[in-house]
């Protein structure tokens, strides 16, 4: 009995948190977007389980919730790394060769357009459309921190820095 309960306990806890969010919004279908936002804040991404669970709880089709989740770039359907590198690919940054930064990061971490998160869930590298700081182009965000006029070597150095700190902490 004990063993079986342990297997299910994590999911129950997980969904209890989703229940709280759903209750906060009275299970109101029209609040789908804020509900998904809060769920994502809690879990960093929207898993298939969570999307289905939100759908059935709101009594709407999972395809509809999945549709909303894939429409807004803000929603992540896959787990992201602890450090999320968001590289601006707006016109100004593009012209200033933001791509060379992207590829330097990809190369350093073994990532690509199809695989943007490292297996150890440390790093995610993605592009975003204009961050609105064109004066600083090319611009990059690492979690909440903004880096302006970044050079490829500098971007790679940030990674090395994080890894070195992580190693020292161990």
């Amino acid at each position: 009995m004990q063993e079986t309960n342990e297997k299910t306990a994590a999911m129950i806890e997980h969904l209890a948190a989703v229940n709280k969010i759903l209750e906060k919004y009275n299970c109101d279908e029209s609040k789908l977007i804020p509900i998904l936002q809060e769920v994502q804040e809690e879990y960093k991404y929207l898993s298939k389980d969570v999307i289905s669970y939100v759908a059935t709880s709101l009594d709407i089709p999972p395809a509809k919730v999945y549709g909303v989740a894939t429409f807004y770039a803000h929603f992540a359907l896959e787990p992201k790394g602890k450090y999320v590198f968001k590289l601006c690919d707006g016109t100004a940054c593009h012209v200033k060769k933001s791509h060379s930064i992207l590829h330097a990061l990809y190369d350093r971490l073994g990532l690509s357009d199809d695989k943007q998160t490292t297996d150890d869930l440390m790093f995610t590298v993605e592009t975003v459309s204009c961050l609105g700081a064109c004066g600083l182009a090319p611009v990059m965000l690492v979690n909440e921190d903004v880096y302006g006029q970044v050079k490829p070597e500098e971007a790679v150095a940030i990674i090395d820095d994080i890894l070195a700190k992580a190693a020292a902490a161990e």
Partner: protein
Amino acid sequence: MSINKEIIVNGITVAFDNERNLLEVIRKAGIEIPTFCYHSELSIYGACRLCVVEVEGRGVMATCSTKPEPGMVIHTDTKQIRSIRKINIELLLANHDRECPSCVRSANCTLQDLARRLGVEEVRYKQLEEREEIDHSSPSLTRDPNKCVLCGDCVRVCDEVQGIGAIDFIGRGANAKVAPAFDQDLSSVECVNCGQCAAVCPTGAIIPKQDRNDVWDLLHDDSKIVVAQVAPAVRVGLGEHFGFEPGENTAGQLVNALKMMGFDYVFDTSFAADMTIFEEATEFLDRLGGSAPLPMFTSCCPAWVKFAEIYFPELLPNLSSCKSPQQMFGSVAKKVLPAKLNADKKDIVVVSIMPCTAKKYEATLDKFKHEDIPEVDKVLTTVEVGRMINSAGIKFDELDPEAFDMPLGFSTGAGVIFGATGGVMEAALRFAYEKVEGKTIKQLEFKEVRGLDAVKEATVNVGGTDLKVAVVYGLKKAKELAEKIRAGEADYHFVEVMACPGGCIAGAGQPITHDIEVRKERAKGLYTADKRMQLHKSQDNYMVQECYNECMGGEAGSHEAHHTLHTNYQNRCQIFDARVPVLKGDADKLLPIIVTICTKQENDPGQKLLALIVDYVKNNNLADKVEIEAAFTSRPSADGTIAVTVGSQTVERSKFKNAINTEEELANNAEFAKIKEAIDKELA
């Protein structure tokens, strides 16, 4: 009097009244406006911009999403309008897989038709190179995203008319597409196979699955005796494929054509429909006597059955346990024909000709297979048969009518009206009335349950009891009705449900139409057939009675009849639930066991039950043969009901009152005993 509700279209004054948009007013005036994303039965989407016209003083406007206003002056065919429409079609074609000659919708495709009508002779944009995979997973439908023009018609019909929403837009911009949740296969989601999405799709992006080649192979295989059963609605739909007037009964020509193509025997599903009435009306009278819960729902429509299995598992005991006429036919054919034809059962092949895509799915279900022999081997739609007749070079319109073969081709008018909404109910009432009153019924027609209203209600006095009946089509409407019944707000005795608009006559396997007049004509065709037939009551079908005498215990409801003609249902409510694997054996074939845990309840009894099942399996050395999962839901389990799936067939719904607290109490629970029994049975 209101100021003149009039507009001027191409110089002609046109009055309007309550039309919901400019488009309907202009069409009323006899001017055709091309549309892609507009359907009178669906909400307005306004995406394709084909329906544009020029409104003086306002410019170019989409008529589907513009209200008519008095005094509007409209031009529908200016140079600018023509070129806008043409460019739009060109853009759609650029995104569309142009494999037209090999597409089943060729010659019946809105995109192709408009391209021709608007004079699009070249596409200047480059075709997309990336190809999406074709979804062949569903036994009923094939989805080819490469042909999708993103009009959203399918999305809206599934959501607004069927109340399901199995497919939706996913992604955005250039990556937008229409697909099931998580971009899964259609067969892994809640799609009930009704095919109404295929019926509204203007292109070949969703089509009924084509099984013609398999059937040709069977026809060309000399070792097989190929037997056809023809559903009622097919006879009033097929003619349209060959230019007959809508509703014209071409059953006789069809029998002739099928024989020419190599079918050995051609029988009538209406025979099985009569038999369904024997069983279903008997079951109903038993239920009235208290044998099982009321209201009783019909179970002829496999799309409705799957819908109930997903959304209303608590009402499954209310579904008639009768198989659909298609499966009854298959069961009886495989039971009686081997002796009659002096052939081996495995050499007799039953091919159904159905107005329906859901019947394709139904025929594949494991519960309708016995010792690996399916009751029904292949299912063709009306249109597929039309095309087979075309390809055989048969001039259908010149054929002499021929009669169905006996005995399984003999039917009464009651079995024929099954194809229209209200028909099953009427046939059942004709039976129940005589049974209860014990005298011959004078007034045969139950007009209250006829006609194309989506929901009909009637009260019929049978033997002194007022029976409240309801007839509904469209699954969204059925959902509303079932919700009322679940909430105890409706007190019907008997409810007929069909998924398609107007019943099987407008099934997704029929020639495509969105014209309500055509549907009316098809229904009328069935009622006319009833009138012209010799017998009108299923109970008068002496060939059915003979069949009971020969091999099914002599009467409806007998033990043997139950064995052959009845079925059970599967609770599919866990389809969306978050899952956690609990135990998985390594045998080749694993018995799936899924236990629902309600997250809204602390210490939900589902958890205890799950642990008990795991212990049971382990203690009995079955752990290798099973795959146990927990399914999590927030669905209220009001009465402590837990869904437990054991295998693909058996589902036990068990009641564990919250009061049961100790393991001992639970272990001694009668419902748990049932689950143990189910596990043992499935593994035996």
